[in-house]
C-alpha cells in the first residue's frame, strides 16, 4: 500500500508544484501523469484531477480575493457559462471514447503551450459597454503606488461564449482551463491581465467543482486515487506558489512549454495508436 500511496503522492506533489510554477495549473500535469505513469484509465484520471483542481483553486484564490485582485461580480456572472459547460463535459466523459479524450487533451496542450509563450501585455483600459455598466461589472485593483486603478468591462456575451467552451474542456479533460479563461477576460472583455488571472483562478474552483460533482455522484472517482492526488497537488501548488516570486518566470515558461508539447505528443500518439 505504502509504495502505491507514496508514488501517487509524489506524482501529485510534482504536478501541483510544476503547475503552480508554470501558471498552467496542476490538472494539465496530473492527468497525463496518472494515465502514462500510474497506468490509470483516462476517466479516472480526469475525475481525480477535477477534485484536486477544486482544492488548489480554493487555496490559491484566497489571497487574490482578500487583496482586491479578483473581480467577484465578473466571476459570478461568467460562472453561469463555465458551470453549464463543465456539467455537460463531465457528463459526456462517460459516453465519449477514450481516444477522443486523449486527442482533445493533446490539442488543448498545444493551445496551452502557445498561450503560455505568447506575449501578454497590459493594454489601455476599456471604456466599458452599457450591459457591463448596468451590472456594475467594472472594478478597481491596487496599483504599484498603492492607488486604486479603475477599469471597465466590455463584450461580456462573447467572453461568456468562450467561457462555455472553457467549462466544457474542464469537465471533459479534468483541467482548470485557466488559459482559455484568461484569454476570454484579457483579450475579449479587456480586463487587466492580473485581474483576469486572479478572477480565472477564483472561477476555476466552481468550474471544476461542477464537473467533480458529476463524477462523485456517479461514483466514478476511486477515493484511493483521488484522495492522495487532491492532497498532493494542493501541497505541491502551495510550495510552487511560495517559490514563484523568486523564480525566473520567462525561463520556467519556456521549459514547461517544452514539457507540455511532449505531453501533447504522447497523448496524441496514444490516441492514434489506441493504447
Amino acid at each position, binding site marked *: *500500500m505504502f509504495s502505491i500511496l507514496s508514488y501517487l503522492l509524489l506524482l501529485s506533489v510534482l504536478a501541483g508544484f510544476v503547475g503552480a510554477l508554470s501558471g498552467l495549473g496542476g490538472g494539465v500535469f496530473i492527468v497525463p501523469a496518472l494515465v502514462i505513469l500510474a497506468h490509470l484509465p483516462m476517466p479516472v484520471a480526469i475525475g481525480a484531477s477535477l477534485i484536486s483542481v477544486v482544492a488548489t483553486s480554493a487555496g490559491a484564490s484566497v489571497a487574490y480575493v482578500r487583496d482586491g485582485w479578483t473581480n467577484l461580480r465578473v466571476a459570478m456572472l461568467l460562472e453561469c457559462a463555465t458551470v453549464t459547460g463543465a456539467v455537460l463535459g463531465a457528463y459526456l466523459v462517460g459516453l465519449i471514447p477514450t481516444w477522443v479524450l486523449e486527442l482533445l487533451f493533446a490539442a488543448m496542450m498545444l493551445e496551452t503551450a502557445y498561450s503560455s509563450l505568447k506575449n501578454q501585455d497590459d493594454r489601455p483600459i476599456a471604456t466599458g459597454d452599457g450591459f457591463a455598466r448596468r451590472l456594475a461589472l467594472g472594478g478597481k485593483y491596487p496599483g504599484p503606488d498603492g492607488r486604486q486603478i479603475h477599469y471597465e468591462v466590455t463584450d461580456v456575451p462573447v467572453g461568456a461564449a468562450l467561457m462555455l467552451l472553457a467549462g466544457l474542456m474542464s469537465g471533459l479533460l479534468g483541467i482548470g482551463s485557466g488559459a482559455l479563461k484568461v484569454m476570454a477576460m484579457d483579450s475579449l472583455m479587456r480586463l487587466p491581465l492580473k485581474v483576469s488571472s486572479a478572477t480565472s483562478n477564483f472561477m476555476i*474552483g466552481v468550474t471544476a467543482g461542477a464537473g467533480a460533482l458529476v463524477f462523485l455522484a456517479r461514483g466514478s472517482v476511486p477515493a484511493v486515487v483521488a484522495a492522495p492526488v487532491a492532497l498532493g497537488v494542493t501541497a505541491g501548488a502551495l510550495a510552487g506558489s511560495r517559490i514563484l516570486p523568486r523564480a525566473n518566470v520567462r525561463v520556467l515558461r519556456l521549459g514547461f512549454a517544452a514539457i507540455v508539447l511532449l505531453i501533447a505528443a504522447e497523448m496524441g500518439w496514444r490516441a492514434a495508436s489506441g493504447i
Partner: protein
Amino acid sequence: MSASAEAEDRILRLWTPLILRLVLLAAVVVLLTGLVLVAVKDPAAYVAHFRRAQQLPSVVDREPWSALLERALHGKPHDVLTLGLMLLTLVPLVRVAFCFLLFLTTRDWPFVLFTAYVLTGLVLGTVLGRIG
C-alpha cells in the same frame, strides 16, 4: 461600481476567504484521517481498490449516500476518504450559496439570478451523475 455593489464587494472579500479556508481545512482533515485509517486498519483493501481502478476502463458505483455516511461515521477507511472528497467538492457550492444569500439580502436581483443559476447547475450536475 455603485455604492451598494461596493458594499457587497467588501462583505464578499471579508467572508469568501474565510469560507473557502474553513471548508477546505475540514476536507483536508477528513482526507488525512481517512488515509491514516486505511494505513492502520486495511492496507490490503487500498491496494485492491487501486488495482481495480487500473483494470476497469471506467467505474460506476452509485451506492446510496446514507449508507456511505453511516459507514464513514463508523470509521470505515474507504468511506471516510470518499466523505473527505465530497466535503472538498462542497467548497465551491458553499461559496456560491453564501453569495446567493448575500445578493438576496441586498436585493441585487440580476446577481440573485446568476448565483441561483450556478447553484442549480451544481445540483443538476449531481443529479445527472446519479441518474445519467
